[in-house]
């Protein structure tokens, strides 16, 4: 019943938050306020743009003179000077005030927020939930404040959810925070907005907003992949979730890292001149100590997955590799 109410409610909310000409849908609690401030500035801007440009164009036509015309009389008007100094100043104070209060609202997470850890790495996001589940897309319950605690493993990234009007840089060596409360279920895009290199524009993900009940069942499902899937399926899911496919392909084309097509049993030439056959131990070493045996022709850029992939995960990935003929 709860679900029914929630979905009815969400439909109502959805109906009211279509994308407009300027904005994506309003899908978080702060979105409406931010859009309001935006439109407040927008209409002030429209007013002054029209005023200034119309006056300028009119003066250019109206006062156009022959070259022989005598120079015009100088004018001065202190009251006018004061007016156009004070009026913009007052408007600026208002805009500043609204901007400030809006910022405070969007930067003060409620105490009971649901916490998700976020890791940015070239060029994928990893979302870690309180129970240790990891996913490459962000799943959150609707109508519940969510706090993202974020860090980067390499360069600066920035997590931007346009529908929630929220954005925060993700910086290596420190934690930054971002919070939101989704107001409707559905899927919304996540962009990386701090330039981070080759595939910056492909560092996309999505936030999936579930009802409370759907979220619980998703989390339970996502947490035990090894129980509900075959090792091959689990391996396929893991390489997708952990961002491996940002650098490795399964179709034979070369990317930042070697392709996995036909990898199993292949003899790889390494950058130190030696060669190695791809077997269980090589895959394991490459995941845990990526810099130890780098395939010739590729840079030593892969991050380690020590502590992030369990033995069982690696076994599943190995099983998956065996299927990539």
């Amino acid at each position: 019943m709860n679900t029914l109410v929630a979905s009815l409610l969400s439909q109502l909310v959805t109906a009211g938050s279509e994308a407009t000409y300027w904005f994506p849908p309003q899908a978080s609690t702060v979105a409406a306020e931010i859009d309001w401030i935006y439109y407040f500035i927008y209409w002030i801007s429209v007013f002054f743009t029209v005023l200034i440009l119309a006056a300028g164009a009119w003066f250019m036509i109206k006062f156009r003179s022959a070259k022989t015309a005598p120079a015009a009389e100088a004018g001065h008007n202190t009251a006018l000077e004061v007016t156009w100094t004070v009026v913009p100043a007052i408007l600026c104070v208002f805009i500043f005030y609204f901007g400030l209060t809006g910022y405070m609202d969007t930067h003060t997470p409620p105490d009971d927020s649901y916490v998700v850890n976020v890791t940015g790495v070239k060029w994928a996001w990893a979302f870690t939930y309180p129970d240790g589940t990891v996913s490459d897309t962000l799943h959150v319950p609707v109508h519940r404040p969510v706090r993202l605690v974020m860090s980067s493993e390499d360069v600066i990234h920035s997590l931007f959810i346009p529908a929630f009007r929220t954005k925060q840089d993700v910086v290596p060596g420190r934690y930054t925070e971002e919070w939101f409360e989704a107001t409707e279920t559905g899927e919304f895009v996540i962009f990386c907005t701090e330039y981070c290199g080759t595939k910056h524009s492909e560092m996309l993900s999505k936030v999936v907003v579930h009802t409370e009940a759907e979220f619980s069942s998703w989390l339970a499902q996502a947490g035990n992949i090894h129980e509900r899937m075959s090792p091959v399926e689990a391996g396929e899911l893991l390489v997708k979730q952990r961002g491996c496919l940002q650098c490795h392909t399964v179709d034979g084309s070369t990317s930042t890292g070697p392709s996995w097509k036909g990898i199993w049993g292949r003899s790889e030439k390494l950058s130190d001149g030696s060669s190695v056959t791809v077997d269980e131990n090589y895959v394991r070493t490459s995941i845990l100590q990526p810099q130890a045996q780098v395939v010739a022709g590729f840079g030593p850029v892969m991050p380690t997955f020590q502590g992030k992939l369990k033995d069982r995960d690696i076994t599943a990935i190995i099983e998956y590799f065996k299927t990539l003929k």
Partner: protein
Amino acid sequence: MSTAAAHDHQGDHGHGHDPHLAHHFDSPQQQFDSGKLGIWLFLVQEILFFSGLFCAYAVYRSNHPEIFEFAHRYLDVTLGAVNTVVLICSSLTAAWSVRAAQLGQRKLMIGCIVVTIACAFGFLGIKYVEYQHKFHEGLLWGEKFNPKHAPGGHGEETGHGAPHSEAAGSTAQVDNTGSPGDHGATAQPEKHAASPAVTHEAAGDAKVTTPRNTSIFFSIYFAMTGLHGLHVIAGIIVYIWLLWRALKGEFGPKQYAAIDFAALYWHLVDLVWIYLFPLLYLIR
């Protein structure tokens, strides 16, 4: 760079009667005033140039006071103090050379310039000794930071200590690569802190814990003193040029602008060191 503001005083492209007066100036006074304002602007620019490093110093010192507290004890206060005295002397002779030029005391002026140059070389010599010692002791920036002794423990048996500590260092290295997984995503810097601590135990010194990221202190130390050193070198070049012109007899009571401006520059270089010395050597 530093001589640029004084360039016009060669003034050889004018058509005026005074060979030192450039064509676009009305009077020698105007020319001198322009040069003076120019060199002051240059000095303002220099101060802002250094201010970036002073800001970096302030940020790291306020965020990590323990690093500065710990690492400054590696520095040799005696050598730093001697260098301070040397630079102050050179500043005095630089100022004196201007006075001598104004009064037409040619020999005194040349003498002062020579002493200034000698002091500048002396400063660099002492700095070289300090740098060499730090290179030898592994007191360097970034990943190269690998001290062979605890602070204050330098000086004795350096020859003997070196290979011994090196072995210890490589032990630490192995230790690092073996356990990256222990550190979290953000704990990478920790591995650099690990090596000195291990080193000291292996070398049998008194037990000392090196704060995390102590290498930052030496990054800042080398950046600041290195940039200052480059300015000293630039000053030496300027003063050698002045000496050459002085020997040719180009300076006199009416023609001393270049000496005046160079002295202003030299005072700034001195002043920067007077800030650097306490900030780096005399913490607490």
